């Protein structure tokens, strides 16, 4: 389990705690002082990302965050993706 923390410039603090099994994101928890409308969507985001291969994460995050059903305030899907890559590398993943 690796936690990566980022204070988004002009935005909010986001922490991503990720568990990778090989190249697959087994689970992720997103915490911090950001806003997501509606709030319950954070659970959907986390479950949508679980089980996704590292190579497919960028598109999956983009799809999840592009939904008209959600507004992320204080961070973007790009932040989550970059933090997950950092977590993957921190967990000695092979991403180059």
């Amino acid at each position, binding site marked *: 389990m690796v936690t990566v923390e980022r204070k988004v410039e002009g935005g*909010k*603090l986001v*922490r991503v705690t990720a568990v990778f099994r090989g190249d697959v994101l087994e689970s992720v928890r997103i915490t911090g*002082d950001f806003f*997501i*409308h*509606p709030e319950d969507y954070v659970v959907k985001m986390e479950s949508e990302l679980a089980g996704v291969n590292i190579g497919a994460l960028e598109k999956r995050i983009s799809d999840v965050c592009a939904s008209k059903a959600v507004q992320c*305030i204080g961070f973007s899907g790009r932040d989550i993706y970059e933090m997950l890559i950092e977590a993957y590398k921190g967990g000695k993943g092979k991403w180059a």
Partner: protein
Amino acid sequence: MGVKWRVLPHSVQNAYLNMALDEAILNSVADGASPPTIRFYGWSPSAVSIGYFQSISDEVDTKYCNAHSIDIVRRQTGGGAVFHQEGGEITYSIIAPQEMFPAGIIDSYREICGGIVRGLGKLGITAEFRPINDITVHGRKISGNAQTRKKGVLLQHGTVLYTLNLPKMFTALKVSVEKLKDKSIKSPEDRVTCITRENPKITAESAYKALLEGFTDGKDWELGAPTPLEEAEANRLSKNKYLSNEWVFWR
């Protein structure tokens, strides 16, 4: 004839009942049983409220809070952890159908926070809205605000600092190193301010009156009280939701 707002005058409750009453009013407004409402309140005992998405272990020194009888409650709104000092702040909530506000989240923060900026202006304190959700005086935060939209109703609550107990605040709350990196001014004293720091002669009563005027400016309003149904729902939510470990330790 326009909408008539209900104003619930300042009252003091514990943290769990405070959050529960906000939710009960939201539900009642959603059902059409209550008018748009502006509520003022305080906290007893002192409490820490954390944002919906925050982890207690990351944000709060729970041992310190337990040792000093400081309640810990999770809000239904996002945003950051707040130390609510007993008698040290004026907290408000605005709860109304969301079509009464701009659709954009930041625009609606700006509009509602305008009530605080106007109120502080009446006290001779020049404040400004600082997106995403803060109000500052000379670059120092004096008010934090958080918003949710549920069942077609917008709920925004926030605090205006009247006095400050910085040592207690910064012991009860854990401040992220990453967050500090982003601040151009680093010492706690330079990051926050309060009404009495800006002008020690301003009484709590006059501060409350000014904020009431700021929020109600241009609105048709009358003083009111929570309905029996809202009070019953608040008591239920306080006990079954806000006090439950399942909710408090959700993350």
